[in-house]
């Protein structure tokens, strides 16, 4: 690989890491700016000032903010996310299985949704303005307009009542075999595919159609190539970057934005975990979860940028 390309990629990763550092500070300040602090949250409104002062000293809350920030940050870097306030449990240990569940659900949905969206996008672009395009657009646009929980209840009704193939509740636990797990999460996966499909499909279609205006597509037509091979061999390679960036946004959403679906199916993952702890005002857990979400978002965006950089023949093969 040419040196310029490697430099660009490394730069992009470095900027991502810097961004992550800034985000960590923003998260810390955000939590800091909330009214009241952890000590008040633990002891409640009736606590005496003495008791509060004692607890603050014990938790280190009497230290200046920037010192606490660096203590937290160094902890995070060594894998220590702190202790939960509500039950004193180690946060990292509590998050690990839920993060695993989140990633498992997101990956399963993505494995179906991404190729399906690309395929439908290519078909829609091939028949742009004709009936296959109109049907695909109409169906995906109506599914994206449905709120997730409506889609979820619809899917539950259809696949557990009308045709009882799946369980309505997606409980997974350690020691379950992979087929059992997949069977358990089938319904939420279907709902998530429905929710993210349209966005990626529309972008694939739009990106291909915009490339189809190029002079080199006319060249391909004048070479007598069949329409599908024009799209796959000539248009798609030049449409990768907008498509990948939309895919990465949707992947990030699948990891961090699906709390409603988790709740509907009783699936024990990050979204529900975060919401529970916000309700309990368990600030260290909220802080840790927010940071993990930021890592996912920034990581996927870096991934999309790197793909765009590598997909550019001018950077991959310099003069």
């Amino acid at each position, binding site marked *: 690989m040419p040196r310029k390309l490697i430099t660009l990629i490394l730069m992009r990763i470095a900027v991502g890491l810097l961004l992550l550092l800034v985000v960590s500070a923003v998260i810390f300040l955000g939590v800091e700016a909330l009214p009241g602090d952890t000590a008040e949250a633990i002891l409640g409104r009736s606590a005496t000032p003495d008791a509060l002062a004692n607890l603050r000293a014990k938790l280190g809350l009497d230290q200046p903010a920037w010192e606490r920030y660096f203590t937290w940050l160094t902890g995070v870097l060594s894998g220590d996310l702190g202790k939960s306030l509500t039950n004193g449990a180690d946060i990292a240990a509590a998050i690990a299985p839920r993060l695993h569940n989140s990633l498992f659900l997101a990956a399963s949905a993505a494995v179906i949704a991404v190729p399906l969206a690309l395929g439908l996008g290519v078909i829609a672009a091939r028949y742009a303005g004709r009936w296959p395009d109109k049907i695909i657009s109409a169906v995906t646009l109506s599914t994206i307009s449905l709120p997730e929980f409506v889609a979820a209840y619809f899917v539950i009704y259809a696949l557990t009542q009308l045709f009882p193939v799946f369980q309505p509740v997606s409980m997974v636990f350690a020691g379950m075999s992979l087929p059992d797990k997949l069977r358990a999460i089938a319904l939420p996966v279907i709902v998530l595919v429905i929710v993210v499909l349209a966005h990626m499909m529309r972008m694939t279609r739009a990106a291909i159609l915009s490339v189809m205006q*190029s002079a080199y597509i006319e*060249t391909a037509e004048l070479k*007598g190539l069949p329409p599908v091979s024009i799209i796959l061999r000539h248009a798609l390679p030049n449409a990768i970057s907008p498509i990948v960036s939309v895919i990465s946004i949707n992947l990030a959403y699948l990891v961090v934005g699906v709390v409603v679906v988790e709740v509907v199916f009783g699936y024990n993952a990050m979204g529900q975990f975060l919401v529970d702890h916000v309700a309990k005002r368990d600030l260290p857990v909220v802080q840790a979860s927010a940071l993990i979400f930021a890592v996912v978002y920034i990581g996927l965006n870096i991934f999309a940028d790197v793909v765009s950089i590598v997909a550019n023949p001018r950077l991959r093969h310099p003069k």
Partner: protein
Amino acid sequence: MPDSLVLDISGLVIEATSYPPGARPRDVTLVHGVDLKLQRGRVLGLIGESGAGKSTIGLSAMSYGRGGARLTGGEIQVNGREIRLASPAELRALRGREVTYVSQSAAASFNPARRLMDQVIETSVSHRYMNRRQAEDHAIGLFRKLGLPDPETFGNRYPHQVSGGQLQRAMTAMALCPGPDLVVFDEPTTALDVTTQIGVLRAIKDAIRDSHVAALYITHDLAVVAQISDEIMVLRHGRMVEHGTCDQIINHPREPYTRALVSVRALNHVEKPPEPAIVRIDAVSARYRGTQSDVLTDVSMDVAAGQTLAIVGESGSGKSTLARVITGLLPPKSGQVWFDGRTLSRALAGRSRRDLREVQMIYQMADTAMNPRHTVDTIIGRPLQFYFGMKGAEKSHRVAELLDQIELGSDFGKRFPAELSGGQKQRVCIARALAAKPKVIICDEVTSALDPLVADGILKLLLKLQAEARMAYLFITHDLATVQAIADKVAVMHRGRVVRYGAKGDVLTPPFDDYTDLLLSSVPKMEIGWLDRTIKLREAAQ
């Protein structure tokens, strides 16, 4: 079958739907019943101005209508088969196999994401009559024949890795690779510099002869088509004007329109006696931000008051960069620009309103130099208001005067740019520059995008205006006929340096330096056999 008929078009009618601004869409006829026949091994030149229907007719040989053009009448036969109403599958079998195409801009017509070799052999492999190895060997042979560097490995490169002239040769290789019966060349050398064009023309000519294909050669440049074709067909407004052998059309044209085309570009401007300078460019060097090398190196020249200095050079020679330095858009690294007894500030921000008013500019693309949502009145009125604070009746009176000066009626004032022809647009841009009462106008390739007859009209207008208002022109061009037509002094630029500078007569008279000699001898002449003679002379000199 040396004389078999490859293409037989009769009574061809092509229509399209036009969408004029502010009016209902209507059907227009682009080609009104054209007939042509072409045998194997023959080259037919299609010549005409823009809008004559040359490309449209060329593409009809592949039964392809660009931008919604519809082939609505007549017969098109390729190798004896009617193709106008052929099915998509039949057309796919025809295109890229029997008939292939070379476009004006190979840079845009190659897919940037794929290697050249993959694109060159694509049809041969996809139409399944060569396997990959055979096709690659064949392509390498063509690369060699077309004079491409390192033919064995040339195909491994991507389009952005090779030069414009090489891409045009590669596109010719792509068209010849599947062994077609007919190749449509659509202005294949128009976008190239003259010194590059001559080599590509020669390569195309040899390749056509060796592969014994039939060729349609489309161009607006009669001097080019005279070098390469056996017959010429002159087209205008979608109708045939005249058709004959190359010799007959060039040397004995019958129709008045053909005669006008042949004699065009023969304007000759007699240079004026020396005058004191109004612009003095003094040892200017410049580079673009973030780059390591100079685009201009130690450039000095004078523009005399009321006269024209032409700057000639190929793309990348620094001509337009010099214009940017003079207008203040690019502050020079070193050196100065003197104007009318004062030093101009290096950067735009430091210039007074008077500095801005007295140096005006006209651009190559009149289209993009005007706001499409402003009327001609607004466009010309803007500098009147900005520089002179004119309003109301005074302003409209002056706009009418200016429209009169550029030989357009005052009813043009209510029109939008999209309702004007190319030449009219450029006239409006001239009026806008004139409105500021400038002392110098920088003209950057102002006739390059225009048809020759229209371009001559613009040059005559510029000369008339110069005589009336004593403006100086800094005239940037790559075209030597234009230099001949307008310049008093000439500067030849090459790679950011002035290689030759002086009165027009001196610059264009031998003895030449090497570069000026190469440049001047590369300009196609309206003589049959010029290409072969020039190439022979060069080979003998080596």
